[in-house]
């Protein structure tokens, strides 16, 4: 497989609307890679700690999924193993941020994250909170192995990460994030027989269900009662198809995030707004999706840097 980031046409010379859809994946500077890896290290630690804490509560894997099908992961609930796994995960972070020994370092982080979360997901119910983090780590690990191939960084990739390797890693991470949305949209189309948007008013039932389930989790009234929204969707089906239905194309075309910096940032912000709305209405978190969109696609430090450059130019 060739490196998409390397075959970019980088066609930023086009004018008008064509420029917005130019295939020009971001070529990140080293400092951007450093900032991104620092932020990603924080997100990965949050996800691994969350899974590790949860794993302590279980001792069996009655419904194995993923890695748990291949290995008995119950040893991860041993307090000592659990603790030291997280400690070594944290010790690996400075190497990850510095780009040193990435095939081994990310391999270890991936094992801890996927192992703990697979074990937690093998209890008879599936959660999707940390999956996106694991998939991004998987993409980065594959990218780090890819760069070991002859004709690329070769054995040097075992020690340090070149700018080219860092760009490939972040490019595959972005593409993986986009793929999560695209496949979800495809599932919606297939499962609903192509009628997902038409059936959107029935989302009202899901809102009511989610709100009432949330109530029975805590027995505290939800801060924002969404009964009015459920009724609005039922009373105005056309409006429901526009409001709820817009989620489908938004997910289906999520690959546009990878096209170039401008479109990527705007599209990712739209997805963050979408997640925030769903969080408010359905009491669902999506915290890791939001973090990854902000880090990998919105990339605020780059826009601040660019803005500061412009200010500097104006002053001179």
């Amino acid at each position, binding site marked *: *497989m*060739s490196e*998409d980031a390397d*075959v*970019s046409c980088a066609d930023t010379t086009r004018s008008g609307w064509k420029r917005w859809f130019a295939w020009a994946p971001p070529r990140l500077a080293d400092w951007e890679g450093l900032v991104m890896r620092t932020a990603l290290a924080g997100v990965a630690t949050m996800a691994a700690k969350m899974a590790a*804490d*949860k794993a*302590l*509560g279980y001792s*069996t894997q009655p*419904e194995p*999924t*993923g890695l748990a*099908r291949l290995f008995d992961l119950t040893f991860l609930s041993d307090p000592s193993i659990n603790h030291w796994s997280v400690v070594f995960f944290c010790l690996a972070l400075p190497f990850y941020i510095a780009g040193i020994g990435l095939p081994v370092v990310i391999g270890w982080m991936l094992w801890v994250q*996927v192992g703990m979360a*697979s074990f937690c997901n093998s*209890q*008879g*119910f*599936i959660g*999707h909170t940390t*999956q996106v983090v*694991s*998939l991004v780590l998987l*993409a980065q690990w594959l990218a780090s192995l890819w760069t070991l191939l002859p004709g690329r960084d070769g054995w040097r990739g075992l020690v340090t990460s070149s700018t080219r390797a860092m760009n490939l890693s972040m*490019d*595959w991470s972005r*593409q*993986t994030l986009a*793929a*999560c949305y*695209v*496949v*979800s949209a*495809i*599932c*919606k189309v297939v*499962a*609903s*027989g192509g009628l*997902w948007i038409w*059936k*959107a008013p*029935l*989302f009202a*039932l*899901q809102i*009511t*269900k*989610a709100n009432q*389930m949330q109530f*029975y*989790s*805590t*027995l505290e009234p939800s801060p924002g009662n969404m009964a009015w929204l*459920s*009724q609005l969707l*039922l*009373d105005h089906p056309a409006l429901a198809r526009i409001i709820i239905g817009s989620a489908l194309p938004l997910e289906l075309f999520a*690959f546009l995030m990878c096209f170039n910096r401008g479109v990527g940032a705007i599209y990712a912000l739209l997805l963050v707004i979408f997640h925030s709305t769903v969080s408010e209405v359905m009491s669902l978190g999506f915290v890791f999706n939001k973090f990854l969109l902000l880090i990998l696609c919105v990339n605020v430090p780059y826009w601040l840097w660019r803005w500061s450059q412009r200010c500097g130019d104006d002053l001179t």
Partner: protein
Amino acid sequence: MLDARAEAATLGGMPVPDLLRRLPLKFTMLMVVVLYLAGEEYPFSPFPMYGDFAERAFYVYVSDAEGRPIATQKVFGQRASDVKKTFETHLRREKEALSKARGRSARLGELPPENVQKAAAATLRWLKSTGPNAPAPTQSERHQLHRVDLSLREGQIVSETGLLGEWP
């Protein structure tokens, strides 16, 4: 012969390998295929949440022996949504057992009440014996699992509650 091979390996005047190399978003396409085909095998998932909308929905909640609701997250460390997913898993197990016993595929809707009660009891047993707060402080107390069905009637959402089972 060589010319014919060379001809076959071009598309729009560009050699296929070059075309593949220049094709954008190959990793996205690969991941979409892998995620879709792998199904729910962590870390892979096709993320099928809210894939289809029906005119009915249900959820479950836990109560004490007198039917007073219990905050599952506070008491057992599990969200009500996870309790529901676990109940569905136990229901599927009962369905598989019934299908095996009958020698033909049974549907969830035709499960006899005793199988539903078994699934509810297994869910409550799981809730009290595993999870972040296990063993639950109310381990020996009797608990009940209730089902709330939501449906549409004349443009309004109506709910019906029923007892699924209890344990111990």
